[in-house]
Each structure stands twice: as C-alpha cells, then as structure tokens.
C-alpha cells in the first residue's frame, strides 16, 4: 500500500520543529510500523537527506524505548507499543501523522526522540526497596499472598515508555509513578519504606514539571502494558496516609 506520512522534524532541542510530508510506496501490511520508517530512512539516506531519528531497541514491546504519537494517539491505533504496531492496522492511501511525546519534562532531543530522564529521576528518588547485596534473608522467609504478588506483578510490568505522559491532557506522570508505588507497596518487603517512598517520588514528579492528575484516564487507555487506573488511587491513598504517618521524612 501507499501512504503519506507527516512527520515532526526537529533538528535539536533548541530548534523549532515542523511537520514534513513524505510519500512511502509499497508498504507491506506485515511490516511493523518501525520497519516502515526504516524503509523511509533508507531512501532518505540514499537521497542524501537525514533520516528520521526515532528511539527503539528491543522491537518486541518490552524495553519501552520506542514511542511516538501516531495520528494523535500515543503508540498509535492499537493498544501496544509502536514497535509492535503493524501496518495492517492502516489502509492504502492513509495519511499518518507522527509526532514525538510532548511534555516539558520530556524535551525533544531530535525529531521523534525525547529525553525521558525525568522517569529515571523519579525512580532514583525512592522507587526501590533498600536491600543492599548480601543482606537478603532466604527467599522463603517472606511468603507473599498470591493475589498480592499477582497484583504487584501487574503494576511492575510498566516499561517506562512514557505514553501515559504523552496522552495525559495534563502531561502528568501519575500512572508511571503509581505503577511503581503499587508494585513495591503491595509487597511485604516494600512496607518499611512505603510512606517515605511515595512522598519522595511524588515530590520528584512535581519537581520535574509534570502536570497534576485530574483522573482523566487517558493514560491507562493507551498504556501498552495495561497498567490499571486504580494504581493512581492507590498512590493517592498512600500519599495522603503518609501525611499523618510518622515515617515520612
């Protein structure tokens, strides 16, 4: 099939970007979206033009590196990552708009590539259990109810892609932050730091210039890993609880 792409081109973080139109011919429906961009890039290179920069690594939907807004939706029309989106979701003659994640906290580095370092800093602020190597008791000394383990796992599948931020009308990082708070907060090992963790992570989230959450739910709707909206409520619960708790720093 033949497609028209309109892609956001931006040379660097300081430059102004714009949408540029490209025609791509003979796209196979079995191609992944990124393979379709590869085809375009090969052609651009041979024409002496700079190929479109986009982030990707695993190309199997798990590293969270790829990410772009496709026709106005983070990761495109299917609920999956851009690398797992296939061209059979489009039809011949379509025009496809491709833009980077847009958020102050995710500055554009080039074209479709953004800097998601803010997510790392949220984790650094408290998204962990302090368990230095060598200090661990036998794994079976802490049983975990299966239901808790399963729910913790569901939250732990977040791939840090940033689609939630990209989709949120407030550019809020609540779903990402809540996923981690939920993952660790549901496990017995996570209890000692539970209150301080949420306070520190939320402070960092605010400091990174993400917006606040108004429970719109767009984030969970596009999350490729199906992180549920309820994690946000759980974060709220923990944070409000921590305000009265003794543990908060």
């Amino acid at each position, binding site marked *: 099939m033949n497609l028209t792409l309109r892609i956001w081109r931006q040379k660097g973080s300081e430059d102004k970007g714009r949408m540029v139109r490209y025609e791509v011919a003979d796209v196979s429906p079995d191609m992944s979206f990124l393979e379709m961009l590869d085809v375009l890039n090969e052609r651009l290179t041979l024409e002496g033009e700079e190929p479109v920069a986009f982030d990707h690594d695993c190309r199997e939907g798990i590293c969270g590196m790829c990410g772009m807004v496709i026709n*106005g*939706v983070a990761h495109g029309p299917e609920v999956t990552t851009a690398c797992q989106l296939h061209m059979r979701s489009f039809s011949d003659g379509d025009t496809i708009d491709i833009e980077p994640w847009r958020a102050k906290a995710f500055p554009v580095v080039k074209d479709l590539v953004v800097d998601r370092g803010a997510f790392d800093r949220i984790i650094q602020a408290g998204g962990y259990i302090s368990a230095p190597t060598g200090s661990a008791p036998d794994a079976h000394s802490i049983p975990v109810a299966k239901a808790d383990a399963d729910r913790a796992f569901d939250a732990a599948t977040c791939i840090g892609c940033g689609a939630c931020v990209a989709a949120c*009308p407030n550019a809020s990082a609540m779903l990402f932050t809540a996923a981690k708070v939920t993952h660790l907060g549901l496990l017995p090992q996570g209890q000692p730091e539970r209150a301080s963790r949420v306070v520190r992570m939320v402070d960092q989230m605010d400091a990174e210039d993400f917006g*606040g959450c108004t429970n*719109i*739910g767009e984030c969970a709707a596009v999350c490729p890993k199906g992180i549920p909206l309820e994690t946000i409520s759980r974060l709220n619960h923990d*944070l409000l*609880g921590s*305000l009265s708790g003794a543990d908060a720093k």
Partner: protein
Amino acid sequence: MIPTRYRSSVFLKAAMAVTGAVMVLFLIMHMVGNLKAFEGQESFDAYSHWLRVVGYPAVPEGGLLWAIRIALTVSVVVHIASATVLALRARRARPQRYQTRKRVRQSYASRTMRWGGVIIAVFVLYHILHLTVNVIAPGGASDSPYERLVNGFQQPLVAVFYIVSLLLVGLHLQHGLWSVFATLGASSGRREPLLRGGATALSVLLIAGFMLVPVSVMIGWVS
C-alpha cells in the same frame, strides 16, 4: 513556607476533592430545599426564613446559614485556588501542543472540568446576586425569595442560563463525584464501575431535582 508535601499535586487534588465534596453536600441540601417551591410560596419563604433563624437563640440569628456560608466560601476559594494552580501546572507541563490529537477514553465531562468550573463560578455569582443579595432582579424585585425566583424564571433568557449552568454542574459532578473517591484513594479496579455509576446517578438526580423548578416555572406549573 508551606512544606512541599502540602504543595504536592496530589495534596492539591485532595484539597479539591474535599472542598468539592463539601459543595456537593450543600447542593444536595439546596436541591431538596428548592423542592419546597412546589409546596407554594409560603412554604418556600418559610424555609428561607427558617434557614436564617434555625437554632436561635443557641446559635445567633443566621448562625447556621453563616456557618454554611463560611464553609462554602472557604471551599470555593480553596477549590478554585487549587484548580488554578493545577491548571497552570498542566499548562506549563505541555508548552508545545500536538498537531493532531485524538481522544481515546477521556469523557467530555473530564475534559471540561476547568471551563465548566469557571462557568459554574460565574453562574453562582449571578445566582447569589439574583436570589440572595437581591441586587439584580430580572423580571422584577420582591422581598419574597419565592417571587424573585418565579419572576426570574419567567424570563426565558434567565431560565435558559440556569438550565445550561445546571447541565454544566451535572457534567462537573458526573466526573467530579467519582474523582473524589479516586483522589482520596478509595477507588479500585473493582469499585470503579460502581463509583462511576453512582456518580452519574447522583448527578442526574441532583440536576433533575434542580431542573424541576425553572422548568415548572417556564411551563407555568409554578407561578
């Protein structure tokens, strides 16, 4: 200086939820009170009067009313202040807009919270000037709140403004009522559909109740 944790986006949202809830409680009372309009002028005016003298002399005259007014004022101020801070943050959080935008799940209600809120505020202002403070008197001034009300709603423009505003309030609450639970950490995957359903039902009921008065006046049931 307010400690950071009381300035966090989550805390601000909690403040909105609590104040929102206070306002909702008032609205429920208010709606029920309004229904007295159907019992006729005396009943309605008596109710209005009762509001002012209840508890007297244990509470000074107008005590309850003033207590409500203070609680409401504080709520409105905190609610609007938080909404403003959060709206500004959200604005700053996305300096560059999308060229193309498609909505996946967000409801109309959730998207119009800010604009809807502002229009509601304007409405409340007008409403108080009209019915409480009595400085504007569409359709003719009167000492009787009942008459002021009926006179007002007999003006189609006024009635329509009320009705539109009511719809906006309904929309605000349809999202807001569920949102209160989520914000205060009481929602969960299992409870969410229930809460959302409850929020919709309560908003519809509330707005329907409010709506009865202007609609009845318009079609001449109450005059």
